[in-house]
């Protein structure tokens, strides 16, 4: 046994990995799903894609409102907002060696429109360029004629047109103030068309486009191979283990400073923290702020925390809210008890504004910030990140006030709610402890108001959670939204318009809000749009369709050897690797 220990010790000493200035190592827990920019719709995949592929424009440093040219050099927007013309950068080549021209732009965007896989983010481009949402087959339905398909093809074909080798024109079906921001989403990144066609991807012609409608791009070559123009080239992707990239010495903007980038997947947070301390990783993902004390003040580790240093100016772009369904599916639904006040709730329980206000007042923001957000949280006034155009900090909010909550609940349902009581189930997807805490905070306060109020908190599997919410079986649950593109429409429409993704599910509908939303969607003047959104925010306060949860305050940890990083909330990885350097 003793011998064994000596041997173990001897083996152990020789392998400490000293920080290598040529290699940047990041450890996180997310699975990379795909390396195809059209298929990808998650931040782990996005982080690799945004460093290997490039769009026509990109965010400038940490700004979400300023842009810098990448594969384009300039652009022009027509006065009616219907066409965008980009001049392209000359002399750029892909990692495969092919040179970049307009045909690659045309191919890349049309590939997104043609394939538009159902679980991808390609709809973001589909809407402004074709007026459709899903892929052609889904949109046209069964029994569609060849002519109908030909129509869709001609829309797609006409949406991106090469005027010459270095000028491309986009034709929109309607004015869209968000179009430019949508083009910054990685689905609009430019792939190497010759290389893609040579490797079994769609050949870009009308003859074969129907074979690629709605396909799963994970089955194709671009799933795990990349040829972009970015500052880094893919070396290897070992799914579930690591992604390795190396500097592109021929990058048009000059070769980046760090030669190798390694993204490692380590599920266990304790292991990640250990690796950071040991210098085996330059940065690691932390699940929550509560783990910060374990790395703060450690030699060699820099912690940037917007809660302690407001001058960083960082804010979260995630919006979380409690969803109150106004048309609950009643059939065989134990979540609403008996289906009537007393031992349950009626299916239209939340249509009563007093119920919604009562729930809003009963939510203890301070406990949420202290316990769930670990002491650092920011109250938001509307379902829009504070850094976005149109966010108005002066819109009133519901502050935690049990007396007002009691007042509202007494008025609800003509006083019946207070006299007869209620029972409902609050669901969260298991593993999400902050959603669970929200449910328990509300439960505890509402039950305190009136002993006849009974609420059960229930954790269910993610798949069941989505299924039940989609079928309107959940009276109340917590939802979250992160941006696809940096435009307020991506939030406001989603949360407040009758046809918005979340509002359609809650059954919230208000014609006045809809009118303002429609107006803002096509208004091209930013100042007027901001005014409209502020107006909308005030109206939404009155209607209280959601309980808006405070946002977390961002932080970042990094080994002190690394410099050049910043935090751009629109980038999946916060910063581009090409801007980093290491001593």
């Amino acid at each position: 046994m003793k011998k064994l220990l000596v041997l173990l010790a001897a083996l152990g000493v020789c392998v400490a990995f000293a920080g290598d200035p040529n290699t940047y190592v990041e450890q996180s827990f997310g699975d990379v799903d795909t390396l195809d920019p059209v298929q990808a719709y998650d931040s782990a995949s996005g982080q690799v894609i945004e460093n290997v592929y490039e769009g026509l424009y990109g965010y400038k440093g940490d700004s979400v409102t300023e842009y810098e040219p990448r594969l384009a050099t300039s652009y022009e927007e027509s006065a009616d907002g219907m066409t965008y013309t980009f001049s392209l950068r000359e002399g750029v080549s892909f990692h495969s060696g092919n040179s970049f021209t307009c045909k690659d732009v045309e191919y890349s965007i049309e590939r997104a429109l043609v394939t538009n896989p159902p679980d991808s983010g390609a709809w973001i481009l589909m809407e402004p360029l074709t007026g459709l949402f899903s892929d052609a087959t889904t949109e046209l339905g069964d029994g569609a004629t060849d002519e109908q398909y030909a129509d869709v093809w001609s829309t797609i074909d006409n949406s991106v047109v090469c005027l010459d080798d270095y000028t491309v024109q986009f034709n929109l079906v309607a004015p869209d103030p968000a179009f430019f921001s949508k083009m910054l989403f990685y689905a609009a990144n430019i792939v190497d068309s010759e290389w893609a066609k040579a490797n079994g991807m769609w050949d870009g012609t009308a003859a074969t486009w129907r074979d690629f409608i709605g396909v799963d791009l994970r089955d194709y070559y671009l799933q795990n191979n990349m040829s972009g123009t970015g500052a880094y080239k893919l070396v290897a992707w070992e799914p579930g283990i690591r992604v390795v990239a190396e500097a592109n010495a021929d990058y048009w903007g000059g070769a980046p400073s760090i030669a190798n980038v390694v993204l490692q997947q380590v599920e266990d947070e304790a292991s990640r923290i250990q690796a950071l301390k040991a210098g085996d990783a330059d940065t690691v993902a932390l699940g929550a702020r509560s783990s910060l004390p374990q790395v703060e003040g450690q030699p060699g580790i820099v912690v940037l925390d917007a809660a302690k240093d407001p001058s960083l100016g960082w804010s979260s772009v995630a919006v979380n809210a409690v969803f109150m369904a106004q048309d609950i599916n009643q059939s065989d639904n134990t979540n609403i008890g008996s289906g009537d006040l007393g031992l349950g709730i009626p299916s239209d329980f939340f249509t009563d504004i007093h119920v919604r206000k009562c729930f809003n007042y009963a939510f203890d923001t301070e406990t949420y910030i202290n316990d769930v957000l670990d002491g650092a949280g920011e109250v938001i006034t509307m379902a829009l990140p504070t850094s976005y155009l149109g966010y108005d900090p002066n819109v009133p909010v519901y502050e935690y006030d049990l007396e007002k909550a009691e007042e509202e609940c007494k008025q609800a349902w003509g006083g019946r709610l207070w006299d007869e009581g209620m029972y409902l189930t609050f669901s969260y997807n298991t593993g999400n402890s902050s959603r669970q805490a929200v449910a328990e905070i509300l439960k505890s306060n509402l039950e305190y108001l009136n002993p006849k109020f009974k609420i059960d908190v229930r954790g269910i599997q993610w798949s069941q959670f989505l299924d039940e919410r989609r079928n309107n079986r959940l009276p109340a649950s917590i939802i979250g939204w992160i941006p696809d593109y940096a435009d307020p429409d991506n939030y406001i429409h989603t949360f407040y318009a009758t046809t918005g993704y979340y509002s359609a599910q809650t059954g919230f509908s208000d014609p006045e809000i809809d009118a303002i939303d429609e107006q803002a969607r096509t208004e091209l003047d930013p100042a007027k749009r901001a005014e409209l959104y502020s107006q909308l925010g005030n109206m939404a306060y009155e209607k209280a369709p959601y309980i808006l949860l405070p946002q977390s305050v961002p932080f970042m940890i990094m080994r002190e050897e690394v410099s050049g990083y910043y935090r751009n909330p629109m980038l999946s990885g916060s910063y581009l690797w090409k801007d980093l350097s290491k001593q």
Partner: protein
Amino acid sequence: MDISSPAVSAQTVTPKVKKGWWQSKAMRRFRRNPLGIIGFIILLAFVFVAIFAGPLTSSQLINYRNNCVRDLGLSRSTVTDLRNPVKPAFWRIIFAPPGSCFNMPRDGFSEIPKPPSELSILGTTSGGYDIYYGLIWGTRTAFYGGIIVTGFGLLVGIIIGSISGYFGGWIDTLFMRIIDVIFAIPGLVLSMVIVTILGQSLRNVIIALSIFAWAGYARFLRGEILRVRELDFVDGAKALGARSGRLIFRHVLPNSIGSLLILASLDIGTIVLGVAALSFLGLGAPAGYADWGQMVNFARGWMLGLPGQPFAYWYVIFWPSFIIVLFVLGWNLLGDAVRDVMDVKS
């Protein structure tokens, strides 16, 4: 199959549960084995804790906001009934506690553990859950899981084992092939799939583990039946006109089931390890349910303490892992002693 399945270790079992058992040779041998006695005492203590979980946690139930008190129909003024054996609530929480009593009460929602205080005498684990409460009620969870899984496994095992051994032929072949398949698949991965599909709850964990629990018992019993059939006295009985069915039910089953019961009950420790492993992988009881495996999982992020204070959160990992090991150790010490006694040939 794991070691505690009787098929491996019980081939030579000859139970002697007769009169004067305390003075019997087996019992005397058992009493000489200090480890077995220690195991027995540990288990007795756990049984006591499980039965009196309610009264043992009455001060937590009184001081935290919780649904258990609500579902027992107690108000803030009558909550002290829990300490009073003449009140019905005292007995109700012992014999028929509402499901909500298994939820650990929370002191806030913070992920950061809190050290022991007057309210939480062993501290709170990540998420503000009271450690003491979780340990006490977790004992019930452990017994429930262990007893139901073994009970179900035994029931199905006895039925299938006797059918297989009695009828033989293609039924026997079919069952034995199914058992072979069960032995051949990685139980943990498939249990994970089952729990993911059925949803996270203690009930579904029990279902998942039960699906794999019966196979060993069935095979053991079938083997016993076949073995007895070959014996001379059976031939003799047959010659005297006894039917083999009668023989099995009158002579084989009572004997084999006795040893099967003893051996299966000792598997409870192993079953609890299975429950804990699923909980650790995030697939056990729902968050907040009093369950030791989950408490170890909660502790995972806090084991390393803080810079300069490596033991800052020692209580978070120490208590649940200590209790799991103690519980399983109790079963295994007892089990080892019992097997040792039963293995002895007179």
